């Protein structure tokens, strides 16, 4: 399969300046990290605050450029300035705060913002806006003001705004952190559906473990490095290691682990409630 994103030996340093403008402290947000994402994959990146996961996300669409090492998106090096806009069109990004990423005062105008920046013809923009809004099921709100929408709806508008640029990859940077449970579900379902039906590569950064269970691969980050990675089942069955770096495992996995410890004959790599029900029924 085609390689979408490749990064090698990535290092990113934040420089903290004192009042005199001298560098006072250097913080390594990313510390020697390799990354490879193939086309059409759904990748979840987990990690607690300050683990470098958001910094990594910003490298994928060239909002940040690595201090050392390199990152290529569809073969384009992010360090080359000529590639920046092409990369950002291919790798769209949805941010955490739904209010701070909507620019226009009308939903459809906001969705049109991306393609307008790319210089797309007006008729084509119109077509893309309608398609994108339909893809996130926000078509009926096209002429509404974003201020009156719920958090989940605003986030879906933001997704439509990225879709209208026709990206091959979307990076979700904790898109559900500020939403209520129903909004979280809306956004997650949209991301999953875009991955399955439209073949868009999805990179989901989150600290909700339950959101990672549908991923093809889970990457766990700690202190700017990849602590470990694998399928959701592989990753979450390492309950102890997850807890050691301050992360939880999905509730179902947690319960399965405890039952196992109590001496029941129980698989520990359960992720969904359905699997749990199946396992309990098989108990005897």
């Amino acid at each position, binding site marked *: 399969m085609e390689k979408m994103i490749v990064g090698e030996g990535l290092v990113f340093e934040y420089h903290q300046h004192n009042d005199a403008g001298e560098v006072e402290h250097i913080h390594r947000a990313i510390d020697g990290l390799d990354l490879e994402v193939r086309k059409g994959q759904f990748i979840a990146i987990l990690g607690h605050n300050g683990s470098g996961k958001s910094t990594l996300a910003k490298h994928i669409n060239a909002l940040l450029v690595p201090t050392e090492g390199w990152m290529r998106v569809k073969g384009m090096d992010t360090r080359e300035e000529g590639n920046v806009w092409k990369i950002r069109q291919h790798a769209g990004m949805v941010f955490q705060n739904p*209010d701070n990423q909507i620019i226009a005062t009308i939903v459809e105008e906001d969705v049109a913002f991306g393609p*307008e920046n790319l210089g797309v013809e*007006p008729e084509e923009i119109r077509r893309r806006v309608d398609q994108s809004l339909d893809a996130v099921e926000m078509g009926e709100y096209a002429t509404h003001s974003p201020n009156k929408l719920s958090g989940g709806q605003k986030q879906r508008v933001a997704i439509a705004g990225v879709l209208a640029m026709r990206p091959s990859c979307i990076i979700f940077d904790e898109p559900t952190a500020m939403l209520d449970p129903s909004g979280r579900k809306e956004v997650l379902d949209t991301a999953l559906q875009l991955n399955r039906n439209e073949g868009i590569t999805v990179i989901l950064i989150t600290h909700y473990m339950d959101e990672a269970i549908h991923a093809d691969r889970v990457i766990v980050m700690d202190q700017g490095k990849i602590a470990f990675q694998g399928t959701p089942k592989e990753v979450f069955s390492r309950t102890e290691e997850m807890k050691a770096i301050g992360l939880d495992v999905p509730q179902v996995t947690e319960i399965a682990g405890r039952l196992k410890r109590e001496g029941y004959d129980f698989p520990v790599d359960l992720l969904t409630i359905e699997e749990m029900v199946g396992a309990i029924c098989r108990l005897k």
Partner: protein
Amino acid sequence: MIRDITLGQYYPAESFLHSMDPRSKIVLTFTFILSLFLAKGAPGYGVAFLFLVLAIRASKVPPRFMLKGLKAVFMIILLTVFINLFLTPGGAVLFQWGVFKVTRTGLETAVFMALRLIFLIVGSSILTLTTSPISLTDGIEALLKPWEKVKVPAHEIAMMMTIALRFIPILLEETDKIMKAQMARGADFESGGLVKKAQSLIPLLVPLFISSFRRADDLALAMEARCYRGGEGRTRMKRLSYTRVDVAAALVVAAYLLALGLLARWL
């Protein structure tokens, strides 16, 4: 309470004026405002008044909405009237009391000045009442476009207006939230004199400023992520286009100007 402030006073309706192109509305409104300075004497103002009545009828906006705009500047109008009334020399003295002297010219100037101000405000509120903020912004951008050659930042001005329109309700909401949070902890915004009230706003403004800087930072990042790089090479989804409505409106305004000009000639 703070959320009751409505921004831009757009009155949605389907009318002749609503269907006009924002560019022609802006240009014609300015033409009308300028024409007020050419109008002379009662007949001139009469023609201007008739034109306004016609415009209000064509806008389908209830006249009381127009008058709302006047309330805000009532004091200014009153002040202008008084200054003109008492301080204009010349003509027959109609009334005198101590140093205060009202002359015939003074009275005339005062009345016409008040009318001019009222017409001016009503005229411009017709523009804002019949044009949504977003199409007003589009209109301003399109009209300023030719001036970009002499370094007028047309696109930047329009983008700033759009972002301001988008964030003012959000910031108002946030102000409300911070106010309530501080009131819950015993802050007092209600009592005290003007100075004390102003002082009590400081703890409100500091967090508001900090959060708006953070929002600006986030928004800039989101805009860059969506390939925003200024106005160059940018297209627009909606294209403005003049229609027959605009031609008709231009003709009406031309007829009005002609009437005004002829009157000025005769008198």
